[in-house]
């Protein structure tokens, strides 16, 4: 087992990190304060070639593996978790989903502008009454000639306020529960689709989040993604890949916190010495390092296995490995971020220091893409099969 990244992956890591520092470093604080996403951010990532990182070249993508996508989101998160989140919703939840489940026409139509950043992508599953109980979604899709008529509300949708293309889940047959779910590709201009409100969050500010409303929204039959009533497979394997992918974000957050903490601990002098001289501070830094290393290995492993797995969802190895990866990485990141603020003392509490932003950002990853509790139940479910 070679635990080193290939040269290609190392080059990707360095180029995304340097790009993030240069392009997004200067705007990260302002994005957080003002809760805005400048409209050049996506096209700029498109120029770098990371928006379609897992999309085959014939559609405008880079044709790389999930590990590359994980590395990209990790490096973005070291600078701006908000941009990393929006990037992930676009590249993984939307574009990668279309690559895996759409037909040729759909791929040719939707993937190229997603790869360039001309279009922004999103995925809409969660509803006000369906969070952890994702299968309990209530948005309906009723066939009417050449269209489906969709009615319902989606909640907490990353990129919702700005996206052009949505992978969206609805119930084509409510009686059948999980087996009545269908995935659709929705365009923001479809009649009856609207962004009802932008949500204000404590962290990941700048990554725009919305509540969406579908009111007799007319969706052409050609926009069914995969098969009618078979959306559950799209959803479940999408979720495994989402978890393996998003584990990279808290990894990047923790790495940023660690780097800032080491720097501060060496520079801050009290009692005549850098605070890095004191055992309690040293122990915190050592624990950060250890947990980040562990998270990195588990995250990269899950990404590699996810690419190898033929399918995801219940009864697969990747179902529990991906859950374990994000469970560990997210909880680790919150702990590291808390200790990082602590090491900075009073300064860690001030907005003029970035460390408090990483702390506010970290908490979300224990919740989105399946809460830590759900992740634990998934893992247990697989263990006990």
């Amino acid at each position, binding site marked *: 087992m070679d635990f080193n990244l290939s040269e290609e992956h190392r080059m990707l890591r360095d180029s995304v990190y340097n790009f993030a520092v240069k392009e997004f470093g200067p705007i990260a604080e302002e994005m957080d304060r003002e809760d805005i996403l400048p409209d050049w951010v996506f096209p700029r990532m498109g120029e770098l070639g990371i928006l379609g990182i897992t999309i085959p070249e014939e559609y405008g993508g880079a044709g790389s593996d999930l590990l590359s996508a994980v590395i990209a989101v990790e490096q973005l998160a070291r600078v701006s978790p908000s941009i990393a989140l929006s990037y992930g919703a676009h590249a993984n939840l939307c574009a990668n989903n279309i690559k895996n489940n759409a037909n040729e026409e759909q791929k040719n139509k939707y993937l190229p502008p997603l790869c360039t950043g001309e279009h922004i992508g999103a995925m809409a599953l*969660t509803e006000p*009454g*369906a*969070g*952890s*109980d994702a299968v*309990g979604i209530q948005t309906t899709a009723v066939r009417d000639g050449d269209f489906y008529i969709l009615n319902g509300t989606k*909640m*907490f949708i990353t990129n919702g306020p700005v996206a052009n293309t949505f992978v969206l889940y609805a119930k084509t047959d409510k009686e059948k529960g999980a087996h009545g779910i269908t995935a659709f590709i929705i365009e923001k201009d479809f009649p009856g689709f609207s962004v009802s409100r932008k*949500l*204000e*969050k*404590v*962290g990941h500010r700048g990554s725009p989040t919305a509540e969406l409303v579908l009111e007799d929204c007319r969706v052409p039959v050609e926009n069914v993604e995969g098969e009618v009533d078979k959306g559950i497979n799209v959803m479940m394997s999408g979720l495994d890949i989402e978890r393996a992918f998003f584990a990279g974000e808290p990894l990047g957050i923790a790495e940023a916190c660690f780097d800032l903490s080491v720097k501060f601990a060496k520079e801050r*002098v*009290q*009692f005549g010495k850098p*605070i890095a001289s*004191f055992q*309690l*501070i040293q122990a915190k830094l050592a624990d950060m390092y250890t947990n980040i290393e562990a998270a990195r290995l588990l995250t990269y492993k899950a990404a590699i296995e996810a690419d190898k797995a033929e399918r995801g969802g219940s009864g697969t190895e990747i179902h529990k490995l991906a859950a374990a990866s994000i469970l560990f990485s997210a909880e680790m990141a*919150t702990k590291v971020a*808390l200790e990082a*603020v*602590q090491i900075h*003392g*009073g300064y*860690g*509490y*001030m*907005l*003029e220091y970035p460390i*408090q932003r990483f*702390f*506010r950002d970290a*908490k*979300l990853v*224990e*919740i*989105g893409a399946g*809460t*830590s*509790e759900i992740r*634990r*139940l998934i893992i247990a479910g697989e263990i006990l099969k």
Partner: protein
Amino acid sequence: MVFELTDEQNMLRETVRNFAEKEVAPLAYEIDRDERFPIESFKRLTELGVLGITVPVEYGGAGTGYVEMCIVTEELAVVCGSTAATYADHAGLCIDNIRRNASEAQKEKYLPPLCNGEKIGGLGMTEPSAGSDVMSMKLLAEKKGDGYILNGTKTFVTNGPVGDIFVIYAKTEPEKGARGVSAFIIEKEFSGFSRGKKFEKMGWRGSPTGELIFEDCKVPKENLLGEKNKGAHILMSGLNTERVGLGAMSLGLARGAYECALKYAKERIQFNKPIAAFQLIQAKLADMAMEIELSRLITYEGAAMADMGLHEEMNLIASYAKLYTSEVAMRVTTEAVQVLGGYGYMKEFPVERMMRDAKLQTIGGGTSEIQRLIIAREILG
């Protein structure tokens, strides 16, 4: 040994709780968003007569003690950390310090306007290069003529941007280190005193924090608080009661978050049941409830000891109270966000604010690391 509040203390709690729910809670979101001083609540706390809670009635106080101070602080913190911090700083750090250490003349001059809310009080000890190492402070107080000239800066001063009267620690004899520290009562009108920057913070946002700048600041000799070069003792015993007060604030923050989480867990339905039906959620609520109870016990033990005048003997309890409750507040508020799921991350629900407010609890008033070292020093003898 079962700790019970008196009837009067229970009545005080009920009064403040009702006030907090009806009048303080509705402002909490806005003062946090706008970083605005809770002037309305401050005025109403004046009317309730709780500002001079440890001050004898003859100076305009309530004539009660630290248990009462903790009750008020706790109940305010349940709904608004910033209002609790504002109150505790004014009533505890400033007013109570003057009550304990000032001369008769100083008490007669400063306590009435502080107790009736005419003047806002604060305390300055921390400096940019003197945080955990507070005794390395550099603010210099040179004897000159009939008074002192102060030069230097204080930072992270709660109520700094709005205060009228400050207890300030300075070095009258820098070569002597801790034994050269003196305490002073500073009025904002003194020449050479000015306010520096106001800090923008992640939490405690309605509690204004700022720098105080002393540039040849003229302080009359009557404003020396306690004995010259004996300020370290005032500082340290002030820290004991400050820590108990912070314990009450942490307790309130934790309780507020727990009550939100408990309510939500009963109302939020997923998989056709309230999420309170699930073991993982039950375990979180159980741990919260237990840790809050323990926080209550240690905090009020410390307050009771202070009320009995056991200021030296309470070093350990004060540190335990501060350390334990602050870490509980962080755990409970963070878990409350988790229980509320996606909604916990949204500003329209109060738990994310409680989580942000909680983070300062392990830092201000002596970091958790310093508390552990204080405790170790005491137990190792």
